[in-house]
């Protein structure tokens, strides 16, 4: 079951068994076994909520450390657009790129160029799709759809993220000489780490590692403070349409869309997906949905608070006067940037492989639900009575783990 790679990990010694993460996990992926949290990997969407709510810092996000650079001859950084928002004021993008290079990178790729390519492709794709089309950008939301809304998978735009597009362009640029090239994404979020290792909407990834912006931040800040006075050595050609990707609604703005929804926070996204599933919102063209508050600016691997970061992003948006300059792309050129939806390994919601056994289990499960108090006390180690009943029929818990069960309405117990 746990075969899907995840970047959220539990340090067992630190876990105090407090149930907070179990209760807060928006997809009920956490259980308590022997007073320790356990993450069910097939359901986890890597949203990082458990990392945020754990009072003992027992949940951590995996990522690479800067030392991995040593394994490569030529090191190339793809910084998330959110990185530019982290320094409390408008800093020349070139200087930030200088700072990134000072960490040991040979080149900093301008991700706004890749954002603009994806914008152009998306504009085209959504014309041919069921409405509303859903942005494939936030990996946690894509997992959420795969796990809880499989019937909405065909609403996801089948385009690669700007990160993959950037990596493909870099590999193509180096061509024959791409041996020894290491491509690293500087990430605001843990979910991207999973995505980097395990690209669940396409068969392969083109990046070699994912670094946390918060890990690099102190060094970057130091470099910037020291070199602020001088003119930057790197140049930068960022577009405002690309930088807009840092904010919920930015992708739609870049596409000049009017009928769009931008939503963040897993609970809120669930409300919107619930509506789409019921056939509503079919008058909306595009939905940008993010797991984190304020979208990627609320990613847990950033240094600054998302609200201040948005203030800075707005400055970039106003100052950069280059807008998307991607012209007509040939179908062949575009096709490299479409996701094949292969490797679509996903949660299997079935209670049993064959229909007859699934029916049997469901009938037993419903009977069990009626025998439980419905107070969702959590003492069984499952987040709710319903979840517990499901765990029992899936063989993940045993009936005696609930201390309050009264077997009423069960077979042979009628009228009790």
């Amino acid at each position, binding site marked *: 079951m746990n075969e899907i790679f995840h970047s959220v990990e539990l340090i067992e010694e630190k876990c105090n068994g407090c149930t907070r993460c179990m209760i807060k996990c928006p997809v009920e992926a956490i259980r308590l076994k022997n007073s320790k949290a356990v993450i069910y990997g097939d359901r986890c969407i890597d949203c990082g909520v458990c990392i945020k709510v754990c009072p003992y810092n027992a949940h951590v996000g995996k990522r690479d450390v800067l030392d991995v650079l040593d394994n490569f001859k030529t090191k190339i950084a793809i910084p998330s657009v959110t990185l530019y928002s982290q320094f409390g004021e408008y800093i020349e993008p070139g200087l930030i790129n200088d700072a990134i290079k000072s960490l040991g990178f040979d080149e900093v790729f301008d991700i706004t160029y890749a954002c603009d390519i994806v914008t152009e492709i998306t504009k085209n794709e959504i014309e041919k799709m069921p409405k509303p089309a859903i942005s494939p950008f936030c990996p946690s939301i894509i997992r959420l759809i795969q796990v809880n809304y499989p*019937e*909405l998978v065909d609403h996801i735009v089948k385009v690669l993220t700007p990160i993959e597009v950037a990596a493909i362009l870099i590999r193509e640029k180096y061509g024959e000489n791409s041996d020894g090239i290491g491509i690293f994404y500087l990430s605001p979020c843990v979910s991207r780490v999973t995505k980097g290792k395990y690209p669940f909407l396409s068969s392969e990834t083109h990046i070699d590692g994912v670094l946390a912006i918060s890990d690099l931040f102190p060094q970057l800040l130091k470099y910037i403070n020291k070199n602020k006075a001088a003119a930057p050595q790197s140049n930068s050609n960022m577009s405002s349409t690309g930088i807009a990707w840092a904010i919920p609604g930015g992708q739609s703005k870049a596409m000049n869309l009017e009928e769009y929804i931008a939503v963040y926070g897993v609970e809120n996204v669930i409300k919107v997906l619930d509506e789409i*599933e*019921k*056939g509503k919102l079919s008058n909306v063209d595009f939905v940008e949905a993010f797991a984190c508050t304020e979208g990627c600016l609320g990613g847990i691997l950033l240094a600054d608070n998302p609200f201040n970061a948005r203030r800075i992003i707005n400055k970039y948006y106003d100052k950069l006067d280059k807008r998307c300059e991607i012209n007509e792309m040939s179908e062949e050129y575009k096709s490299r940037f479409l996701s094949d939806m292969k490797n679509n390994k996903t949660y299997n919601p*079935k*209670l049993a492989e064959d229909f007859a056994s699934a029916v049997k289990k469901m009938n037993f499960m419903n009977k069990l639900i009626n025998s439980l108090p419905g107070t969702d006390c959590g003492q069984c180690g499952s987040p709710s009575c319903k979840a517990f009943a*499901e765990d029992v029929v899936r063989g993940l818990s045993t009936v005696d783990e609930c201390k309050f069960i009264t077997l009423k309405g069960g077979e042979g117990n009628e009228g009790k």
Partner: protein
Amino acid sequence: MEKALINLHYEIIHGDFMKAGEASSNIKKALMQLGVDNAIIKRLCVACYEAEMNIVIHSYGGCIDVDIFEDRIEMNAKDKGPGIKDIELAMTEGYSTAPDVAREMGFGAGMGLPNIRKSSDEFEITSVVGEYTNVRIVIFID
């Protein structure tokens, strides 16, 4: 009569917009657990939600039963209420008598009944003015 393998039963209360949509969400989850095809889940979800909303908005209250058989899913939405005088008119796209309170909440597009019919393989609506409305649909699983 052939007995359903699974019966899901939901009471629907008139005017309860807070709980509206719960039946269709629960039904979707059950269908996923049974391994029903995603395209069928989507159709049933839409039909069930619209039927649920019609009971909430237009009737005095009722219930929805989803019966799962080996080869098909049946949904019966039954209510007590004003009934429908002109069924053909009610089935017309865009026709709606939804009151203002419902319209303010974004309902009343007059697409509910037409979409239920579109989502189903068999569709039947019976109604007696001043008494009840029953909507019955069948979706075949292959």
